[in-house]
């Protein structure tokens, strides 16, 4: 079980890192295709608010899991 938690730790960290270029590229693509106000508002909220929270928490959580910090259940 502890090994599975650590392996998943790698997955969470990779997800946290991977989400950054994915979101930014999607935002650039959609804003370039239609530079409307609503597109700017939407992607600003996603990039400024949602993405940093998801990335930071997944990366940190993944690193903790990989180090075995959650081997004893919370």
């Amino acid at each position: 079980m502890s090994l599975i938690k650590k392996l998943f730790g790698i997955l969470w960290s990779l997800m946290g890192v991977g989400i950054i270029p994915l979101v930014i590229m999607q935002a650039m693509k959609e804003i370039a295709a239609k530079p409307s106000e609503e597109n700017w508002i939407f992607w600003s909220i996603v990039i400024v608010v949602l993405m940093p929270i998801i990335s930071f928490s997944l990366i940190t959580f993944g690193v903790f899991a990989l180090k075995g910090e959650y081997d004893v259940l919370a």
Partner: protein
Amino acid sequence: MAQNVTNVSQTEEISSTRRVIAASSVGTLIEWYDFYIFGTLAKIISEQFFPKDNPTAALLATLATFAAGFVIRPFGALFFGRLGDLIGRKYTFLVTLVIMGGSTFAIGLVPGYKTIGFFAPAIVFILRLLQGLALGGEYGGAATYVAEHSPAGQRGFWTSFIQTTATLGLFLALGVILIVRQTLTVPVFEDWGWRIPFIVSAFLVGVSIFIRLKMSESPMFVKMKKEGKTSANPLAESFKQKDNLKMVLIALLGATAGQGVVWYTGQFYALSFLQNACNIEFEQSNTIILVALVFGTPFFVLFGALSDKIGRKYIMMAGMLIAVLAYRPIYTMMYNDADLKQKTEIVEQTKVSEPKVEVKGTDTVTTIVTNKTYTDGTTYKETVKTTIPLDETKKAELAAAGKLKPEKKKAVILSKDTYYKMIGFVFIQVIFVTMVYGPIAAFLVEIFPTRIRYTSMSLPYHIGNGVFGGLVPLISTRLVEATRPAPGLPPADPLAGLWYPILIASVSFVIGMLYISNKTNNMDVE
């Protein structure tokens, strides 16, 4: 004799706990009411405070303001959580109540965009931020306060009453709006009557402040303060110390993020889906939600109490998993049941009104109303309004820009059988909500120590609910819009909005199952 003394003492303890629950819950319920009337009246507020040129932009602007109300919540959690761990729970959540009540009351008094121009949306935006800030401080305080008064082994049960307040707040908001709307008639309500639910808040908050002033401080906090064990810097202790930070992260990713999206999907998204995807008439769609909430609310207490017996984890995780698996089938059935293409129209009963032409200001407004009846008892009313400027130059300009399109309002009134089925579909979703939300206050309270509990539990709760959950309407609307082949055409996948809550709840479920213990109910709150 000794037995009698014990019984009297137990009765007094239960009675005291009940008073604490009642006083805390009323205030929290009113804060939720204040917060949700804004979201429920999003469409009217967008018309009143944002430029009308582009209705989608206006709605998105309101949703952004709505999201801002949610996004600011974690900051309120940090600010008031710190205060609550430093000076006490009671006075902190009294302050949040005053801020919330004051901002809500003020929103009801702000003149519209037509009167004061850009100041209107700017003021509303600031007031909405204050609402979010206050709410961020309220919930953690109330949950902590109640948990710290509750006997060990019953925290799930007692804190579940606080958990009912969010849903009851939404219920109260919908109820007040419906009553005011019916009393004043729709045009008056849309003109100025929408302000009444905001203004009513001042009275509700006044009552709640009176009740809360009579409450005593949390016994655990008092004891800790006497012993000089309060935290000097709750923020640093909560988020800079690895042992606490890792609990904050697991609370967020394994519990509150998934719980947040399930909560907003089962209530807010359901309402938005009924109104926008199924075109169900305003009052009928609201009563579907209201009735489902009434029947669903006792389950918060049931699952809260059950979590004291079998643990918090499995109930919350079961709620997330069932929601993930059931959302698409449930919404498919909801959509199909309201889909007029799948019903048989009684053509001879179709009525199309004569065009009604009115001159309103500088425009000519032509209205045509079509009423249709279907064999299953469903009725459909379509109102088409075409607004054409009297000024020929302006008319030609708008025509060239393709802006002379008629505005269509669709209102489906379901037959009784389908109406009850819809209530059933929403009720099932409210059950998912009660499973994930009923035990969560006890879960959060029990994983953090008393000295930093208010701060530590508030942040993951408000990021999970405010950010992950609060963005459900914005992101889901966007996902549906992305499947629309062209403006004016229906979306190819009206259920596409569900992918966001399904994804977040799935990740939360896997993390929760792997990393959360089911034994938190045995932990000592000290």
